[in-house]
């Protein structure tokens, strides 16, 4: 049996781990609340922009995509949105595994957002052509470098993590271009179509539509990033909650072991005293 003072030292260390995971757990839960609010605001913004866009749209089928003359028609790109740091459970691993099921090196390039995903790919020896930090800030998400990087591909599939609830996070994929195009096709809103005959456009209708489309593409992408952040924070919260629970269980078992060791030490001392008393008595009798 280990000595009581050794067990006490280890217990103290685990208590520190328990406290730390508790702090991480509450940080993750605050982050979840904060991002949820951002997602709601961003969705509201998108809907309003969509309302205006749907009234000025020209021909959605020939727009939104097909704006890059140097399109790589024979290649597609997978964009993986992973966490920027570790401690987020196994969610990034699941993301990579889901992507690998459809990955064909000869036809597909990989762009990865987040250092955790990039590390996971490197460890598995899977090449990626670009790496970006997850572009999240307090006031806006600048996804323009990523949009620029994917503009030349005819098919863009995004692998991301979806927040279902605090306990459940799923791996999802969307085809970015098709989804924006689909949204445009579904734009059967109550807005009347307006033209430059009845409305003043500064600059031209075409340029404004271009700007709106780029904004919507950016917003759609930003929403996916937000959704991923939400899922990662929820996963981190779960991982921390689990670690905290494990640490608590360990503290309980260490305390038990400590008390046993203490009792056994005092028993041993008592035995030694008794033995020495016995020896003394025997010596006195002689």
């Amino acid at each position, binding site marked *: 049996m280990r000595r009581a003072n050794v067990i006490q030292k280890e217990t103290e260390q685990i208590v520190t781990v328990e406290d730390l995971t508790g702090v991480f757990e509450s940080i993750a839960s605050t982050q979840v609340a904060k991002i949820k609010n951002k997602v709601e605001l961003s969705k509201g913004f998108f809907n309003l922009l969509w309302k205006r866009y749907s009234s000025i749209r020209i021909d959605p089928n020939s727009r939104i995509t097909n704006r890059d003359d140097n399109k790589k028609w024979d290649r597609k790109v997978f964009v993986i949105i992973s966490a920027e740091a570790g401690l987020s459970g196994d969610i990034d691993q699941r993301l990579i595994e889901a992507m690998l099921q459809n990955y064909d090196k000869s036809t597909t390039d990989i762009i990865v957002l987040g250092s955790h995903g990039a590390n996971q790919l490197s460890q598995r020896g899977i090449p990626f052509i670009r790496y970006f930090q997850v572009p999240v800030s307090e006031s*806006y998400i600048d996804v323009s470098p990523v949009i620029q990087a994917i503009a030349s591909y005819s098919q863009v599939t995004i692998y991301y993590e979806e927040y279902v609830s605090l306990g459940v996070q799923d791996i999802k994929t969307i085809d970015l271009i098709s989804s924006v195009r689909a949204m445009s096709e579904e734009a059967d809103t109550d807005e009347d179509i307006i033209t430059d005959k009845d409305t003043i*456009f500064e600059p031209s209708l075409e340029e404004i539509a271009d700007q709106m489309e780029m904004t919507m593409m950016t917003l759609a992408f930003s929403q996916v990033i937000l959704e991923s952040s939400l899922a990662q924070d929820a996963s981190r919260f779960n991982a921390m909650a689990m670690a905290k629970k494990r640490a608590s269980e360990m503290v309980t078992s260490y305390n038990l072991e400590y008390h046993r060791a203490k009792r056994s030490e005092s028993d041993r001392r008592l035995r030694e005293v008794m033995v020495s008393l016995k020896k003394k008595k025997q010596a006195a009798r002689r």
Partner: protein
Amino acid sequence: MSHKDDDAVQLTVIARSPFHIYYEGPAKRVSATNKVGPFDILPEHADFFSVMSPGDVVIETESDTMQFSISNGIIGVRDNEVMIFANM
């Protein structure tokens, strides 16, 4: 249209960025800047869409005037409803 009528009609303004609501409610005037220069939107303004230039947006309500800076944006005016999509 008489001056009295102008007073009665108000703009309904929604000014937002992706993660922030600057203002939502009635207003008497909205001022901003585009490539052509500064412009004002008053009630009964013609339907109007524009890409806004960096600068200040001013929204004047019955009781207050608020101002915020934007780096880019789109403004859409339709039937006295003004939507400002800023900092995208």
